[in-house]
């Protein structure tokens, strides 16, 4: 390991320069003056470096004697290198922390899906996009059927596990560009960007099928679940809140018709 202190480190060059400057005989072709100026400049540069890294921020014009320049220079460089390394580490720690906080503020802890706040923001953005550039989107509101029964018969832990499975089933039924979030207790909302009704129906069908396939093992028993879905396609002059209201009405309709199915609300958007 190298010692962190180049202190006591003697530099022949410095001594040679000092000796040459003291020796009037080198004055021949104005060398001495040049050397004198170079020497002074070097001292000033090291002092300036020290004024950047030094704790006390020495007042300008407060010069130390021009001694051990190389050692002083090396010490300051070493300090700067360490400070940069440590600062970088600090910053990447903060960045990581920031990411964790952002993740916590935009995601649902149980299912890992985005949360209602995040989804609301995304829907608003989508409204602005459609208003400016045209296009459309569809909303799918999925609700677990008879979820309360699972909670009541098997307890909340099994209920939670079922929700995690349902979230996974819903997410895996989406197209790549779609987003889904945990909207409420056992309710999930998906935003299908630029989806026509056929595509929305395709997603809903897959979601219902993969929900049916869920099995949560409890004491040799398989807990099953089904889901109902309301679909609404965004219409011109509508905000996401209006579309969502229609998706909710459709969901109610799907429940009323016997659950484990989707219902399509409103006329086709295109």
């Amino acid at each position, binding site marked *: *390991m*190298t*010692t*962190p*202190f180049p202190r006591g480190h003697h530099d022949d060059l410095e001594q040679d320069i000092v000796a040459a400057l003291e020796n009037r005989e080198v004055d021949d072709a104005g060398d001495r003056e040049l050397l004198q100026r170079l020497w002074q400049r070097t001292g000033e540069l090291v002092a300036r470096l020290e004024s950047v*890294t030094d*704790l*006390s*921020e020495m007042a300008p014009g407060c010069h130390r004697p021009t001694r051990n320049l190389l050692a002083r220079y090396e010490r300051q460089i070493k*300090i700067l290198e*360490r*400070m940069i*390394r*440590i*600062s970088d*580490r*600090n910053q990447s*720690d903060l960045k*990581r922390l920031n990411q964790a906080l952002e993740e916590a503020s935009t995601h649902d802890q149980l299912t890992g899906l985005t949360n209602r706040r995040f989804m609301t923001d995304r829907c608003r953005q989508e409204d602005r996009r459609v208003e400016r550039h045209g296009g459309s989107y569809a909303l799918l509101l999925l609700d677990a059927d008879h979820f309360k029964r699972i909670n009541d018969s098997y307890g909340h832990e099994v209920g939670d596990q079922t929700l995690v499975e349902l979230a996974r089933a819903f997410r895996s039924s989406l197209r790549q560009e779609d987003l889904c979030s945990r909207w409420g207790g056992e309710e999930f909302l998906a935003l299908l960007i630029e989806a026509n009704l056929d595509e929305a129906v395709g997603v809903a069908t897959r979601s219902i099928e993969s929900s049916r396939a869920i099995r949560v093992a409890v004491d040799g028993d398989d807990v099953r679940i089904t889901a109902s879905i309301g679909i609404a396609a965004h219409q011109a002059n509508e905000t996401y809140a209006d579309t969502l209201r229609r998706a909710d009405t459709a969901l109610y309709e799907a429940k009323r018709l016997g659950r484990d199915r989707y219902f399509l609300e409103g006329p086709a958007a295109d």
Partner: protein
Amino acid sequence: MANQHVQNLTIESSQSSPSVIADWERGVIMMRGESYPENSFSLYEKILDWLASYLEASPRSLQLDLELNYLNTSSVRAMIELFDNLQTAAENGREVSVIWRYDARNPRAVELGKELGEDYTFPFTILAIDP
């Protein structure tokens, strides 16, 4: 002052600066909290001065006991200054040591401790604290 050689330094913590207790009898400087004060120099100058007079007045050992969750760049600079002074003392045969305590919930804080302790020849111990 009669008690000039037995003087403790106590600085209360604030939101942006750590608490400091320098105990002359025990030969321990304890710092706890976060360090991003507006003027790092005025805070660390007191500690550096205390350290210098302790090392000069007494032949006894010194321990720097740190639990600092966050350090801004100029605090890091001041910390390097403190450690460098300890290194000089160690090279002169003085028994000095540093304990760097970090929150076990933030395992990455170990790395900062390692980074700070690098290059010194005196004992630099990194300890996890369980909250």
